[in-house]
């Protein structure tokens, strides 16, 4: 294991450690960072990157040690080195930009005191006398490995705004125009303050990321042209991005006020100082000539000054390109953990529709694991989000780690959910995955479209499982990558004989005969508390001796204790709710996507009580679409009297037959699971 240490402990140093550890990993080495280096205020993005490298030093034997930023050597570093009690044969290589010979001699001496032997100290100013970032802790080295560009279908342009002020109202307008044209794809790298400014403006849909949202290595993988504005280079991360991109055959345009990239000797192009001239410069001079520009840049002697192999040689390391662990493509379904199990159910249905030569696996949250396993698929268990305030995304970091371990370049990730997690975003970009987003529609009013869509670009395809009724199929984004398929839901075939057998088993199980079976599926109270409705239904059915009322929830969900007090009401935890619904005379259900489509396509008479929460789909619209066609009754959460009337009407006055008859007559679109599976295998 290679330990990456730093002379000082700070955010800047930690960034340098992370990036260098990533570079070593990309070169085939195992690198780690002592967990003590993690800054308290590391911020969200860095935590993801750090999760791959942080370790307790005693867990590993050091193969080599790198010390970055050795121009300043704190006692904490010396203590860390001394505690490691490194063997005499473990190379220790320190890099720094030493302003004086004394600072070099002093650092070398201090390292030697801690080690009990000499370290190899490399003065980067020898090879990089005019660094693009003289204060950089990072050694600013890379592997020269040009790749064919553009990487995607259009040239990707990343613009780093640097210290640019955004108060000129024309600036964002200009960027917005640039992001809307089709000659290139635009992405901004912004500071926290710039991001807030943009978010509060009319141009809040500008594609942008923060400095720490992605590592420079990952960012370079999705960038063909890098443009830098501001005064100087905006920190180690951006300097690393420029170095990495040039080494990878990309084009770097220096628009900084002090022409800092050019003056470092880097083979960058001198671009316009003003943003307003950038579009013309790109389209007129750059876009048609990127390969020639990159070719010239790769001839630059400057590339020799950034060769990472020099540091590896000093540490007696020989790069060993990582080989993929598998030769076959893996397909992994990742359903988000919504209020119910809808995402997981849908994924299971599509996974089952895949050809036999594809054996998909799942990564699922605890409530969804049984669904995947029931279908005979392997499942990587994930950890659900907790409500801890200090680190609310800790579970997602774990998800990121597990997905990273399970997937390799070229694998296929199928994500079913609304908000695209950081883990999903990072894993797709870092591993170069084929990615598909199964994105149900009917978003609630008021949901930020930008928040939902800003990561759409990382997916190769977006599959939208339609609603059964056309008026519910809103379009949220457009393009060749968007594919609409018919409703995707779980089909259950159950004969009359099966139904009779199930009802007999229920009678036996609960020790009472019944003529009417009512099933309530109003959720576990996560999104909307339906305990009052359940009590009301249980109460009105209590006196009906020929009726059995089942409160059906998925395993593990909470049920109010009061429900257990009724004689005619029983609680059933099951993943086979559809079978119970098919056996029921009446189903009282929430109006989630899966429930409604199963009710529709299986002709099940129902009363729908929509749930509502800011993060839920618009269940009321979906329910109304059915009740307007007299396929069910829709009851809102406050309509208790109507609920009672409707239940009685259904059970006593033929209401269920009216619904069943209408359901049989309605023409529904073809189910979409097969089409979705077909799209997946083409991705």
């Amino acid at each position, binding site marked *: 294991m290679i330990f990456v240490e730093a002379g000082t402990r700070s955010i800047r140093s930690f960034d340098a450690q992370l990036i260098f550890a990533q570079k070593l990993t990309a070169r085939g080495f195992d690198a780690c960072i002592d967990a003590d280096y993690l800054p308290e205020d590391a911020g969200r993005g860095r935590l993801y990157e750090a999760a791959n490298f942080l370790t307790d030093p005693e867990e590993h034997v050091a193969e080599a040690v790198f010390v970055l930023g050795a121009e300043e050597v704190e006692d904490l570093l010396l203590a860390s080195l001394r505690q490691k009690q490194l063997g005499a044969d473990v190379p220790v290589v320190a890099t720094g930009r030493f302003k004086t010979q004394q600072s070099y001699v002093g650092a070398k001496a201090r390292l*030697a005191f801690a080690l009990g032997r000499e370290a190899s100290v490399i003065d980067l100013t020898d090879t990089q006398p005019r660094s693009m970032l003289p204060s950089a802790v990072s050694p600013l080295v890379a592997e020269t490995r040009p790749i064919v560009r553009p990487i995607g279908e259009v040239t990707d342009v990343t613009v780093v705004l640097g210290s640019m002020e955004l108060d000129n109202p024309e600036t964002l307008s200009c960027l917005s125009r640039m992001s809307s044209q089709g000659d290139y794809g635009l992405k901004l790298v912004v500071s926290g303050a710039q991001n807030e400014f943009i978010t509060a403006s009319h141009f809040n849909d500008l594609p942008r990321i923060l400095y720490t949202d992605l590592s420079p290595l990952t960012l370079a993988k999705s960038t063909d042209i890098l443009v830098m504005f501001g005064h100087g280079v905006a920190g180690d991360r951006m300097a690393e991005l420029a170095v990495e991109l040039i080494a990878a055959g990309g084009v770097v345009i220096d628009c900084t006020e002090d022409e800092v990239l050019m003056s470092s000797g880097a083979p960058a192009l001198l671009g316009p100082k003003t943003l307003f001239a950038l579009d013309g410069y790109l389209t007129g001079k750059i876009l048609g000539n990127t390969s020639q520009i990159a070719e010239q840049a790769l001839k630059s002697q400057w590339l020799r000054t950034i060769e990472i192999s020099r540091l590896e040689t000093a540490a007696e390391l020989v790069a060993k390109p990582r080989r993929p662990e598998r030769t076959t493509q893996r397909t992994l379904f990742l359903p988000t953990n919504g209020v119910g199990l809808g995402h997981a159910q849908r994924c299971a249905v599509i996974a089952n529709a895949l050809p036999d030569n594809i054996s998909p696996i799942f990564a699922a949250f605890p409530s969804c694991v049984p669904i995947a396993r029931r279908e005979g698929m392997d499942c990587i268990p994930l950890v659900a989000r907790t409500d801890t305030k200090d680190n609310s995304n800790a579970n997602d970091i774990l998800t990121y780690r597990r997905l990273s371990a399970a997937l390799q370049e070229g694998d296929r990730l199928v994500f079913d959910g609304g908000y695209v997690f950081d883990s999903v975003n990072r894993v797709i970009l870092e591993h170069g995955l084929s990615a598909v987003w199964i994105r149900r529609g009917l978003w609630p009013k008021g949901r930020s479209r930008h928040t939902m869509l800003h990561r759409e670009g990382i997916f190769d395809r977006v599959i939208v499982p339609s609603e059964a009724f056309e008026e519910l199929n809103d379009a949220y984004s457009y393009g060749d990558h968007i594919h609409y398929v018919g409703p995707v839901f779980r089909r259950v075939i159950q004969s009359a004989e099966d139904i009779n057998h199930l009802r007999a088993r229920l009678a036996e199980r609960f020790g009472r005969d019944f003529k009417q079976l009512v099933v309530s599926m109003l959720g576990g109270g996560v999104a909307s508390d339906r305990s009052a409705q359940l009590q009301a239904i249980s109460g009105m059915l209590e006196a009906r001796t020929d009726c059995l009322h089942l409160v059906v929830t998925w395993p593990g969900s909470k049920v109010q204790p009061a429900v257990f007090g009724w004689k005619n009401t029983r609680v059933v935890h099951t993943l086979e709710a559809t079978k119970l619904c098919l056996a029921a005379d009446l189903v009282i259900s929430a109006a989630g996507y899966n429930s409604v489509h199963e009710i529709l396509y299986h002709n099940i008479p129902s009363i729908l009580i929509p749930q509502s929460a800011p993060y839920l789909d618009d269940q009321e619209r979906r329910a109304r679409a059915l009740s307007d066609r007299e396929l069910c009754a829709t009851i809102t959460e406050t309509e208790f009297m109507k609920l009672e009337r409707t239940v009685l009407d259904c059970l006593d006055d033929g209401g269920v037959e009216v619904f069943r008859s209408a359901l049989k007559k309605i023409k529904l679109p073809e189910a979409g699971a097969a089409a979705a599976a077909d799209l997946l295998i083409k991705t």
Partner: protein
Amino acid sequence: MFGDTQNVAPVLRRVVDELCIPVIWDSPRISADFVILHNPSFLKFQNSLNAQVIARELIVVTHENFLRPGGEEGFDVSNCLGQIDASAIALRKTLAPVSAYNRETVTNWVSRFREARHWQVLEADWFNIFSTDLCHPCDMPEDRRGRHSRPGFEKFPPVAELDMCFPKHAKSNVILGANALLDAGVHRAHWKLLPFDAISVEDFFEMIDFFVYFTAPTWQESFGRVVAEALAAGKVVLTDPKTGKTFGEAVITCHPSEVDGIISDFILHPRRYHEQVSRSQSALERYSVQNFRAHLSKVLTPERGVPA
């Protein structure tokens, strides 16, 4: 040149006051037959001496080793001597080592750097004056070990060697100046770790019978004042051969792995302990005021322009 604090060592202050010699700070011009400049490494963080020196002979006393064990420079010597060179007009420029080991580093450095060959190296050591009351050794030595030093990493050997020097079976192990060990969480139940200045040196010596002193192998004392203090306090000193070179038979030189055996032997034979302390304290005579006066009289000779 000397900074803003203008601190003067108490002993020196007393002498200067008794002789009514005025102290001139940061004089832009220093002119005398002999100018003695102590410890050139004080210039390592600056670019200029900021004073002009005019002298018949400039003697630079090299308190800090020019080279570390292994041959790496201890500080940027060229820069420091260069600043002095650029500011001094003198018929003779002399480097005055403070000990045998210090001399070795100075002569090796001078032979390595061509541009420094005009510097003469004084033949006799410009040793530290060590004048203090001598304490008697204890009657019956026990396995009470200790060390004290400034807290820098260079003053401490690797942890594995510290473990050998201060083992569990010793009656006590006291480490004064253990700031770095405390900060790094290097604890042993059988170690008493005290930060620098936590107790007086006198109190520290009350707690031990054996002074066990090893440093980082990449650093070396140029003189070893702590060793001399321990000898004066009536303790047996165990140290590495290079540090011990300054003190000859006054100290026991060994490797950390040999410490246990040597201490056991002294405890079994208290007479040897007393003989060793007695021998050590006699050796301290070498660093007396009288000897230094004799040394100085050999430097300030008529051949060097001092009237007889």
